[in-house]
């Protein structure tokens, strides 16, 4: 085998793909509570780093004195929907009164000149349910199970 430097760009590229796939997304930013005022934090000076051997020493640059921006609460995460996305058949069976209720909602909307469908209403309800409402969802689920027991279910 010729003793020459080899090109391993392919291995490196594939390793980077694996690394990117294994990265966890950072957690969603926490919404700031309403009673906390946004305080501009005074910049603090960084300690001067000790110069390593062989490096030229010099004063460390200090942080800029500009005040920190107030963080606006993040918008709730909702799935992005487009017309050309492939559909999935949920194939669920619901109790009849719920289906009747959905039909009533559709008919009342139609009387007001709004045409919609069961699919659209259910998609809307799913879309409105964001990941930030997990606590509220548990509460609602408990209330629903109490009002409309279905059978054996996991304790909340």
């Amino acid at each position, binding site marked *: *085998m*010729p003793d*020459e430097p*080899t*090109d*391993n*760009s*392919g*291995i490196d*590229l*594939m*390793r980077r*793909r*694996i690394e990117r*796939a294994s990265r966890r997304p950072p957690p969603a930013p926490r919404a700031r509570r309403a009673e906390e005022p946004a305080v501009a934090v005074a910049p603090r000076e960084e300690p001067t780093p000790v110069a390593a051997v062989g490096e030229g020493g010099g004063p460390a640059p200090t942080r800029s004195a500009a005040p920190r921006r107030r963080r606006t609460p993040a918008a709730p995460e909702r799935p992005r929907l487009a017309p050309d996305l492939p559909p999935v058949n949920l194939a669920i069976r619901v109790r009849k009164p719920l289906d009747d209720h959905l039909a009533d909602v559709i008919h009342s909307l139609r009387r007001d000149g709004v045409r919609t469908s069961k699919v659209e209403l259910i998609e809307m309800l799913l879309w409105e349910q964001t990941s930030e409402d997990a606590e509220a969802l548990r509460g609602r689920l408990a209330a629903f199970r109490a009002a409309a027991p279905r059978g054996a279910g996991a304790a909340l």
Partner: protein
Amino acid sequence: MPARIVTVAAAKGGVGKTTLAYELAAALSGVLVDLDWDAGGATRMWGFDPSRAARAPLLDALERGPDGRPPRPKRRANQPALVPSHPDLSASRIDADLVADCLAAWAGAWEDPWVVVDTHPGANPLTDGAIQGADLVVVPVVLGAREMDALEAIVADYDGYRLLLVPTMVPPVPPKRFVERLAGLADGRISVAPPVSEHRWIRRRLRRAALVVQPNPGARVRAAAAELRAVADSVEVAGAR
């Protein structure tokens, strides 16, 4: 200056060998010599049906030997220049040394800078001769257990040859254990080209134009062509030393 000879070889079929050879020949502006006698090879991909041709230029040229007149490659826009294969190659008793000598002679006679040889999978005299005469042996590698076993055998058999491994049909997230196994096999001694992704639509493609030179390419052709050109760049680097 004689053309550089690149032989594309694989132990198993279905690893993207012929597509790789076709695209490399187009990207490098070289001549594609098709030594694969199977019907679904580069010759049919090019649009040439040897059963309807009056002559078999490759067989005739091999019979004439390295001192005879080389075959004249067929040329067409947006496709690599081609010396077509022939089904009778499978039954021919052509010596591996003869194949190597002929390829070297033709590389000197043609004006094209590269000769890319597509071979029949597995060990046979034509493939052995093409590898023997190559400046660079390109081996497509599918990241699977059996394919990696076959690759280990190839690397062991062709120790002393200049090899370039090309990961093909690579999924978006390659299986880590096979990537590391490939890295261990290459071990800093064998070059590994940038990967070519799993473009399943290529199998269904009917157009004859090579992806790397297709005019007015759509998004997926552009994506595939970019990967194949990166492999061609690796071939130029590895084959030029």
